């Protein structure tokens, strides 16, 4: 051989060469070095804990009306004040957070899943490219609000009857947002897959005999992770904001049902007198979106071995 191996007793060699390490450990190591991502993760977890465990520690019903406290400022009884009907803002913030976060995360998940699936299929299989991309164009060309309106009109009753009013609306909104926001992901992913498909390592895998489905999971998907990650983090923000817009238009959750978007829109009328009522839901949405963006940034860096260790 051109480079002779150093002669070692096998037992020593065993000790020297660590077995292949789990790659997720490497990812975690790199993620930890990204300060912004770490802070983002803490903030996101903090918000998540606040909205899930918070209501147990602050057991005021967010729909309970204490008419004497209406429009009151921060006090011991209502740390964030009360709204125009005297409902406790802190309780409403926490209840709304649950819904907003759940809608944001699931709708983003659905949209990224759909977008990646369609993008990969269109990019990888030439025969599907035309039809799937025309479908994407079709969805991009659809006027969103009328479409959502029609969807809500058609399915609200049926879903409410089947899953209960709140769960029904939740499913409807998540599906509606997911179905109308996957197109950009699909386009970006398709472009990347088209470029990746011509790379030599894909050809090498083909010469090994790797079938298409494993080719996609092993070679294509890990390499399109960065754009998917970016659109996922942006997607959470868009989903939360779209949900607020839908609630505002009366197409989302019922008016007395708090979400961050709904709180924000309710408070907009009183922004001159009680600016803090706009401030809290706005801050919550911004912090969530910002922290998710940082987490996404850190994850993208951590998942790319070429950036790792810098």
């Amino acid at each position, binding site marked *: 051989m051109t480079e002779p191996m150093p002669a070692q007793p096998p037992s020593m060699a065993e000790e020297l060469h660590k077995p292949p390490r789990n790659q997720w450990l490497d990812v975690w190591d790199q993620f930890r070095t990204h300060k912004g991502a770490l802070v983002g993760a803490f903030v996101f977890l903090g918000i998540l804990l606040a909205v899930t465990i918070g209501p147990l520690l602050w057991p005021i019903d967010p729909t309970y009306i204490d008419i004497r406290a209406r429009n009151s400022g921060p006090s011991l009884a209502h740390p964030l004040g009360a709204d125009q009907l005297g409902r406790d803002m802190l309780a409403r913030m926490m209840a709304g957070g649950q819904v907003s976060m759940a809608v944001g995360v699931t709708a983003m998940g659905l949209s990224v899943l759909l977008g990646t699936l369609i993008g990969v299929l269109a990019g990888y299989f030439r025969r599907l490219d035309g039809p799937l991309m025309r479908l994407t164009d079709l969805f991009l060309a659809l006027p969103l609000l009328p479409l959502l309106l029609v969807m809500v009109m058609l399915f609200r009753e049926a879903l409410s009857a089947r899953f209960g009013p709140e769960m029904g609306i939740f499913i409807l909104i998540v599906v509606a947002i997911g179905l109308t926001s996957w197109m950009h992901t699909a386009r970006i992913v398709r472009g990347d897959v088209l470029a990746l498909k011509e790379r030599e*390592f894909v050809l090498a895998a083909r*010469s090994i005999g790797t079938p298409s489905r494993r080719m996609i999971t092993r070679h294509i998907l890990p390499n399109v992770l960065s754009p998917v990650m970016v659109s996922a983090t942006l997607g959470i923000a868009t989903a939360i904001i779209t949900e607020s817009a839908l609630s505002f238009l009366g197409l989302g959750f019922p008016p007395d049902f708090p979400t961050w978007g709904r709180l924000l829109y309710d408070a907009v009328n009183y922004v001159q007198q009680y600016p803090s009522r706009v401030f809290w839901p706005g801050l919550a949405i911004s912090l969530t979106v910002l922290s998710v963006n940082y987490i996404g940034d850190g994850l993208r860096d951590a998942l790319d071995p070429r950036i790792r260790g810098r």
Partner: protein
Amino acid sequence: MFDAPRKLIEVSGLKIHFPIHGGFLRRRVGQVKAVDGVSFDIVEGETLGLVGESGCGKSTCGRALLRLYDLTEGSIRIDGKEIGDADHATLRRIRPKMQMVFQDPQASLNPRMTLSRIIGEPLDEHTNLGRKEKLARIYELMDAVGLNRSFANRYPHEFSGGQRQRIGIARAIALNPSFIVCDEPIAALDVSIQAQVVNLLEDLQEKFDLTYLFISHDLSMVRHIADRVAVMYLGRVVELTTRDRLYTQPLHPYTEALLSSVPEPDPSLATLRDRVILQGDVPSPANPPRGCNFSTRCPRVMDICHRLDPQSKEVAPGHFVACHLHDPRINEIASEVAAEQEAHQEHPTRRET
């Protein structure tokens, strides 16, 4: 030419045409004849060098042998089995026998996989080894190509070009193939590293009884490694013979020109030799010239070359040339062609043979 050699690869009439789409409706307006009627055999255990200038279809030919492209026409047999029209399932079963080493070691390794996963991929696909056995095999392969075992957890970008090419070679030999297409494996490497990699390929050939198709444009390297050499020009094999014959007495004018372009290390000799310098560019493979493909640039072009495409003829045992100059029946054919043309056309054609 050898005593009853066993033919491992038999290629006959191989054609790969890529469609050109154009116009408003993206209709098919033509085709690039990347490989246009190539036939050769590769004997078990030998190294067939495939040389030619850029864009002559060498790589396409090599990839077609592994059925990475669909054939337009022709047949490829490996070990007697026809794979020219085999479906995916059949191909997958044959794949372990034939592997490839790629030109660009950076591009041929997935940047998101560790070395052990890259080398382990063929094992994942074609064997049912347990975790430990697979790792043992990966280490064995890394030893065979001279990679330190402690590199197993690293990623491709952490290696130098030569090391990356070793990874590519380890992946190619993982399944104990009998045939490896080396697609310019040294073109992207430094000269000192080229020697290492070529020596490694030779060592492996000896150790594992490998048969190579060695694609290269480096004539000196091909002279070093190949047993027989095929010269390609514009999708055709113009000359195919043993290495020694090709380098001492090339017959095809293109081979002569190609060989005269190899730099001569001795300056006093370098000034003495007469270089054949070809004029013009390679014609487009989408629109090859009529008659002989080389007729537009050939220094010894004849009238017939523009009319009739020369067929590959065995002019000496094991020495195939596709050139009218070396066709013993040239005068008969020339007069036949001329007579035919005269019959077709009223006005007499010029004859210069």
